[in-house]
């Protein structure tokens, strides 16, 4: 998948450099400047995430998702998903194992949805790119809708 992307973009940029050399060069310069500015912050944040992940054992996630109060554990699941960034292909088997152990489905869905859509960790990068207002609105809406999605799925799956 990634190899394919590299191949396609390499061919495309070579073609572009051949057809419109000056515009392409200046656009590349502009884009690399923009990304360079983001990169410093991204690297710092990735190290923080790596640290948080080692401090956050799966047992804690299980404890939160398995709480008996449905509303509480759904909101807590959404919160937990917002502050953590776990690769989705790790999250799916993890959630599947909790469900098999009898954890409730609502918090699991809220957790899965905010996991990718809400980013407390990436908040500073998003804020720098689009401004505080946009970032607050987008993440806030994502959080609320993660809970709505969880409850509607709870109704449908019943």
């Amino acid at each position, binding site marked *: 998948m990634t190899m394919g992307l590299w191949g396609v973009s390499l061919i495309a940029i070579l073609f572009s450099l051949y057809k419109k050399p000056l*515009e392409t060069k200046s656009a590349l310069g502009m*884009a690399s400047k923009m990304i360079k500015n983001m990169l410093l912050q991204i690297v710092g944040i*990735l190290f923080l995430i790596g640290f948080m992940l080692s401090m956050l054992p799966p047992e804690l996630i299980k404890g939160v998702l398995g709480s008996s109060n449905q509303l509480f554990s759904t909101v807590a699941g959404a919160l937990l998903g917002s502050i953590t960034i776990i690769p989705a292909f790790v999250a799916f088997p993890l959630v599947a194992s909790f469900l098999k152990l009898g954890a409730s489905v609502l918090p699991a869905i809220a957790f899965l949805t905010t996991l990718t859509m809400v980013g407390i960790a990436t908040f500073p990068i998003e804020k720098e790119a*689009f401004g505080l207002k946009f970032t607050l609105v987008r993440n806030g809406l994502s959080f609320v809708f993660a809970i709505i999605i969880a409850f509607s799925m709870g109704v449908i799956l019943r």
Partner: protein
Amino acid sequence: MKKFRLLIFVAILYVGLLVFFPAKGQESLFNTWYYIKEMLEIMPVILVLTALIEVWVPKPFIEQHLGETSGLKGNVMSIILGSISAGPIYAAFPISLSLIKKGISIENIVIIISAWAVVKIPMLANEAKFLGLKFMSIRWVCTVIAIVIMGRIAKRFVSKNDVLEHIKSQEHEHLVSEKIQINEKTCVKCMLCVKAMPELFEYNGKMLITPLLEEIDTKLIDADFVQRLRDTVNRCPIKAIEMQLNLE
């Protein structure tokens, strides 16, 4: 300096961690390496894509298909654009920024970023494998509907101008190309500047300032370079080169 604050903090944190809790420190580094690898894999592609959008996608095209009046069709296109993408959510930001400059609506930007984060085709297969096809499809349908509604609500709270103004202020902070400009209306294309400083000025049907400008911050420490630049600006017969340098 502000840019490095986070990195310095993280460095101190890791040194402390590795000294006092070496096992935790190693685990953290191991986790981080996964994310760094993911970033290194995707960011060059994002760089190229951002530049390609800049050069090849005309503004009217984006305005028409993803702009304010593009309606549900624009929403669907944004969902598709977001879903075929790869990589973590921050990879969506540079591309979104260049799309905003090309005239995409706030609604569709929210949709692209959200779809980029949640709806990924390889991930759907993975989810179906572990949680079942039924679970995956229902979650997918719910999520897509939610994302479109979210976009429509977001545009009521955030205006395009809020974001555009923020981008502008950021650019003034970052882009030095604001410092030297050629007034295209008055420029008579006499080529004096191109001859004097070919490394900075180019002619290609219109006058251009070359990408060398990316390094201008370091160049401006060079007194010789600054002197030549001043001379060139002064020699321009109609003073079409505008410089905003605060040099002592």
